[in-house]
């Protein structure tokens, strides 16, 4: 586990359709200390996914610096695990093989990597589905595999790009509760991208509101853990924080 530091990060695209340069991310600086859960929230087009893609190393920044621990990011790497909105599982591999993929890339032998994979499948409540293929699972179960696959590689930082946006509302709440439970068990450093304000507040220690490529404001979320929806929906603290963040997002 390590900290994540984003310093003066900018990204300018050339938009061929508009025929102009677009500043997707403008001079964003952000610290995620070791073991902290930070949500970035903002409307579509605010640059939140672009930031995550740069941190993951999928696209190069126009300027600025990204540090994992004291190591500068240059391209994708196993120090940063990614959970995708589209799940991005390998459809030709079983659930077990999907989760064992990271350890396999590290050169871990088959019995050991299967042991690791089963451990993380059990953490994600998926032990019964190990031998199945992703297309045989519901969206919620597929994303559990996505989370287990990222965690099984023991990344320094976990990056989550609207991971629960494409599952139904009931499943989403369950997955959010499971994620807070897993986070408490493992104290991962997490950067979580979402456009869903209650989700951002529910999960995070700190919510960063993004607007037009800039950091508008950071809001600390000192809600006690473990967090559960049935308790929090009644909580005035939760409502006040969610309302505060919502006002910021709407002013964005």
């Amino acid at each position, binding site marked *: 586990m390590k900290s994540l530091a984003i310093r003066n990060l900018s990204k300018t695209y050339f938009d061929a359709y508009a025929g102009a340069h677009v500043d997707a991310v403008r001079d964003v600086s952000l610290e995620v200390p070791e073991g902290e859960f930070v949500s970035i929230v903002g409307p579509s087009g605010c640059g939140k996914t672009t930031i995550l893609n740069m941190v993951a190393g999928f696209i190069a920044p126009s300027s600025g610096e990204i540090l994992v621990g004291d190591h500068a990011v240059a391209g994708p790497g196993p120090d940063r695990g990614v959970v995708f909105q589209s799940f*991005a*599982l390998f*459809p030709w591999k079983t659930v077990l093989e999907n989760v064992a993929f990271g350890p396999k890339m590290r050169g871990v032998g088959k019995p050991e990597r299967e042991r690791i994979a089963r451990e993380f499948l059990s953490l994600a409540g998926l032990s019964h589905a190990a031998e199945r293929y992703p297309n045989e699972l519901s969206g919620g179960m597929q994303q559990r595999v996505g989370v287990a696959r990222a965690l099984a590689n023991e990344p320094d930082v976990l990056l989550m790009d609207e991971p629960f946006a494409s599952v139904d509302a009931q499943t989403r709440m369950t997955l959010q509760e499971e994620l807070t439970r897993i986070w408490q068990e493992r104290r991962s450093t997490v950067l979580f991208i979402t456009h869903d304000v209650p989700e951002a507040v529910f999960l995070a220690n700190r919510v960063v509101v993004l607007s037009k490529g800039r950091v508008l404001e950071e809001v600390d979320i000192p809600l006690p853990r473990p967090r559960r929806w049935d308790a929090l929906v009644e909580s005035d603290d939760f409502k006040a924080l969610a309302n505060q963040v919502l006002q910021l997002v709407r002013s964005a």
Partner: protein
Amino acid sequence: MGWTGRILAGAKFLAPLAVLLVLWPILIRAFNVNPQIFPDITAVARAGLESIRDGSLFAHMGASLARVAVGTVLAILVAVPLGVLMGVSPGVSAFLTPLLRFFSVLAGIAWIPIATLWFGYGFGAITFVIFNAVFFIVAYNTLLGVSTIPMQVRNAAASLGAGRWTMLAEVLLPGALPNIVTGVRTGLGFAWRGLIAAEIIATNIGLGYMIFVARDFYRTEVIVFGMIVIGALWLLIDRLLLAPVERATIERWGMVRSA
């Protein structure tokens, strides 16, 4: 599909053929057809048994199948790496796609004249025709397969530590496999048709040659027997070998759900 379903499907497929076999001798006798125009079923059966007994059927069949096998394997060996290479480089693939599409619709037998100039009559020219029929379609399908692997899946592999070669072996090839298999099946279908045409023109052994040379002796029963072998052999290869492999990969990969 269970065993009963399979048997039922097989029966449905064979029923019209059985009707044809029954009608055949009746019609031949009813219209008193000259055997030099069209043979009776008994003559065809006799010609078939004769060609099995003297071994000529297996010699022709072996020659044809060997050409198909060699041409196809060579084509896959070259086309798949080329298709993957194109698939990972958008510039190269955009440039080469129109060429591949052009050559993959160009009939295999259109290569015969130039193939016989380059390789002479026989194994080389015909294998070259097969190679072309399979190569362009498989290269194009591999390219298509690689480029349809979602970017996020490749990103996922990279962020889990996959390097250049593991990306190839673990993601690009398996991800493109359903398309590759479809390409091989389609290409082989064209190759088989092209093979018969090429053997009529450019060799002295093979199923195409067998039916063409029989024409010189008005041996319609040999021609018809050869046609039956050519069609049945392809159906067997396609239904028992290629289709199940294609179905298995596509279903396994979950790209088409029990279509």
